[in-house]
């Protein structure tokens, strides 16, 4: 399969050693966000709006301030003015200004000598509101007469005359759409809706912030990106970035939701007001659900033309998404990813980013892609059924290959969609017979994967072991995969490499662990850093041997004469070189920083079998198969883990997860009891097939595997339910009640 000509014989890459952080994590020693404490530390609590939309007329904090043990209270008045663009959005979301924009919007914060005291003080803060009309649903929010959430929030992309809550507008495509639809034997158009879901990481946001009157500060925080935290906190508080040092804790899940700030600036603002005493803030679960995350909700029209043989002739998508009270719904990514698996000559995309009275949406695993896939893949499946075509064959027939123009514009480089679909066709799950009330669904999914600013350092210790400093927090096992690659590259044991996720003072800026970039980008940079050290070790050996450094090469963990002409010397191991580096020129290290190039996109396809209880509409997942192109699986266990975890998040989104709002605009399900993420007994084992079409842009062929897996479950399950019941659900989640209603509508 080495179509890029990469070496496929590896000593370590592709093996499954124990993860380096495993012992700490099974013994309770690993330190997460809420596990840090400092001497003199205070505890913070946040007062949040009970209204979806209201003017703040007055905030009276005097009773709270008078409470014994309360050391600081902050409101928006404590923040600098004059911010613009996304900086203003972040500040406004951190702490409400003139208006509260959603249920859960922060209004004030308190630091006190105990958590209980801080909570008591919060209850003593009196806020006068003038409640305003609110809007929750995206199709309501886009109406011309909808309550206006913020005047002047639209950017230059929005033409005159659009409804007031449309803040971004986009339109792109190519080809002759009319001719394409005319050439089709079947043209179908439908509307699909998805509800907002939360990333649902089990660890609530937590931080300890400390800042004195000199505006020098420190922060310990659970985050996907310490430099993002630094940049955003400094923007919101008007601080100098280099004066704030941010140390990432172990992170208890993120899935995109920990790439931005929420209450982190509050801890710094409170600390500064409390004479520099550190302030810990730990969110409750209901705060997490009301005021962080979630993803956008979408309302999506899709129109597709198909020939009798399954060939797609034209496609059009018009997506409307709300991402809360701020711009940023991933309608763009949804449009880019929706048709990405298909070769199309005529395609048009239209997107609206719409404000609504909900929390500011944050990235969630392949942001936008699951919604786009739900709409597009569902319609493709409906048309396959109507024409009596095999859904896998239709996907194969229209599959994009290397060199094809993507639906969104640029040509694809090396991709593995065809290989993925071949693996699906050959899998035994497709041969399993289906019984009554059972159905099977297939869908594809896409994610670009991402590069991003990356800075990595490595150094050789005197005993020949190696430490690597990276800036991408390890969420799913990246320290294991990075260690494997560096050890492979150096020709040393896996155990001899320690990868540390370091604080902002230790490296240049790094983008967070997001977009499936950590193993790709930090991995590539780690290897390039290692190359510098290898070059230096070869030079030291050459010096010792008295030969030209060019005549030394690195192999099997040692410097070796390159070829017979270089002279006869026994290999000089890394341990030997390291042991005397003090006498041969000092420390040996390597460093690399760049915007790494060579990102390889990842396609996947899922097959799900379900059984639907015809009397209750309850869907049970019987079998689940994930097939995805990893490029190369550095540590296959953690690649499988990404596939399985992504699939189960998608299953939750498809079946039960949703933000439920009351008439009053308040979130009705801000606890895990009612925000129903899948539990162990809801699921079967999740079968995986790792397809490896190596990415030529990475030394070991890595593509990035984190995101694609959340995408196909939404449409795949809808299609399986269709087959099981005859009813097509076009509005997520497919709760038992909705499935039952659709079945009844089908009967009548």
């Amino acid at each position, binding site marked *: 399969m080495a179509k890029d000509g990469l070496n496929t014989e590896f000593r370590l890459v592709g093996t499954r050693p124990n993860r380096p952080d495993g012992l700490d994590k099974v013994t309770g020693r690993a330190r997460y966000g809420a596990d840090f404490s400092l001497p003199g530390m205070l505890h913070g609590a946040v007062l949040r709006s009970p209204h979806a939309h209201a003017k703040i007329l007055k905030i009276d904090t005097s009773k709270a301030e008078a409470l014994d043990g309360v050391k600081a209270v902050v409101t928006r008045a404590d923040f600098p003015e004059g911010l613009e663009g996304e900086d203003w959005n972040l500040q406004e979301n951190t702490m409400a200004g003139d208006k509260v924009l959603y249920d859960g919007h922060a209004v004030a914060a308190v630091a006190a000598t105990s958590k209980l005291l801080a909570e008591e003080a919060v209850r003593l803060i009196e806020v006068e509101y003038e409640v305003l009309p609110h809007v929750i649903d995206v199709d309501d929010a886009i109406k011309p007469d909808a309550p206006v959430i913020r005047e002047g929030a639209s*950017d230059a992309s929005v033409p005159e005359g659009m409804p007031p809550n449309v803040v971004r507008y986009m339109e792109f495509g190519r080809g002759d759409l009319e001719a394409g639809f005319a050439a089709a034997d079947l043209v179908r158009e439908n509307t699909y809706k998805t509800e907002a879901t939360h990333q649902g990481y089990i660890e609530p946001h937590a931080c300890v912030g400390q800042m004195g009157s000199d505006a020098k500060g420190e922060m310990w925080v659970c985050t996907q990106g310490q430099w993002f935290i630094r940049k955003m906190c400094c923007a919101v508080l008007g601080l100098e970035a280099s004066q704030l040092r941010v140390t990432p804790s172990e992170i208890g899940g993120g899935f995109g939701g920990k790439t931005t700030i929420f209450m982190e600036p509050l801890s710094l603002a409170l600390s500064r007001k409390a004479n520099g005493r550190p302030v810990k803030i730990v969110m409750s679960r209901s705060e997490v659900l009301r005021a962080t995350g979630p993803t956008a909700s979408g309302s999506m029209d899709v129109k597709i033309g198909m020939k009798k043989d399954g060939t797609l002739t034209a496609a059009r998508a018009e997506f409307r998404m709300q991402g809360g009270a701020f711009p940023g719904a*991933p309608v*763009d990514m949804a449009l*880019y990813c929706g048709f990405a698996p298909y070769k199309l000559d005529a395609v048009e995309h239209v997107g609206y980013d719409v404000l609504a009275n909900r929390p500011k949406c944050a990235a969630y695993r*392949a942001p936008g892609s699951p919604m786009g896939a739900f709409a597009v893949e569902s319609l493709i499946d409906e048309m396959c059924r109507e024409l009596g075509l095999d859904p896998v064959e239709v996907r194969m027939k229209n599959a994009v290959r290397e060199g094809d123009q993507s639906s969104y514009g*640029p*040509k694809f480089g090396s991709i593995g969609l065809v290989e993925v679909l071949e693996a699906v066709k050959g899998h035994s799950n497709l041969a399993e017979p289906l019984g009554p009330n059972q159905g099977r669904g297939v869908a594809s999914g896409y994610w670009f994967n991402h590069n991003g600013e990356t800075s990595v350092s490595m150094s050789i210790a005197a005993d020949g072991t190696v430490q690597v400093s990276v800036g991408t927090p390890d969420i799913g096992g990246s320290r294991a995969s990075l260690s494997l690659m560096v050890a492979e590259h150096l020709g040393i044991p896996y155990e001899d490499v320690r990868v540390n996720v370091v604080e902002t003072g230790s490296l240049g800026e790094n983008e967070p662990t997001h977009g499936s970039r950590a193993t790709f980008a930090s991995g590539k940079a780690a290897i390039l850093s290692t190359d510098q050290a290898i070059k230096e070790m070869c030079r030291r050996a050459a010096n010792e041997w008295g030969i030209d450094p060019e005549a030394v090469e690195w192999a099997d963990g040692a410097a070796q004469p390159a070829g017979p002409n270089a002279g006869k010397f026994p290999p000089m191991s890394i341990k030997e070189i390291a042991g005397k580096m003090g006498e041969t020129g000092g420390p040996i290290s390597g460093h690399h920083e760049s915007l790494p190039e060579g990102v390889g996109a990842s396609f996947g396809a899922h097959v799900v079998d379900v059984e639907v209880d015809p009397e209750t509409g309850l869907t049970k997942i019987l079998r689940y198969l994930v097939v995805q192109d990893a490029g190369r699986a550095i540590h296959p266990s953690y690649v499988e883990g990404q596939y399985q975890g992504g699939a189960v998040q998608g299953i939750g989104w498809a079946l039960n997860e949703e933000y439920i709002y009351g008439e009053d605009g308040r979130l009705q399900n801000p606890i895990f009891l009612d925000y129903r993420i899948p539990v162990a007994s809801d699921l079967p084992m999740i079968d995986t097939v790792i397809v490896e079409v190596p990415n030529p842009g990475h030394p070991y062929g890595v593509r990035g595997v984190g995101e694609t897996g959340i995408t196909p479950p939404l449409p795949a399950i809808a299609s399986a339910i269709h087959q099981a019941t005859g009813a097509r659900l076009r509005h997520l989640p497919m709760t038992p009640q909705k499935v039952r209603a659709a079945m009844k509508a089908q009967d009548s």
Partner: protein
Amino acid sequence: MAQVDVHLWAGLRRLTEGAEVVTVEAATIGEMLDALVQAHPGLKPILDAGISVALNGEIYNGARHRAIAEGDEIYLMQRMKGG
């Protein structure tokens, strides 16, 4: 200095007198973006708000320094973000 065709998204046509592909002379992504604004000043707020550039299929946020060459495939895209 290379002459390159920059593919915009269709929604920007109203800012470019109807052009969806704009040909500019530039040696880097940064020069390319500046040349776009020079040719069509209406694009400035869009570019300032943050976009991504797909250069031969590789998607960049920022990277104004990145060299471009004759014949490169260039698409402007909405700002890329990941989870």
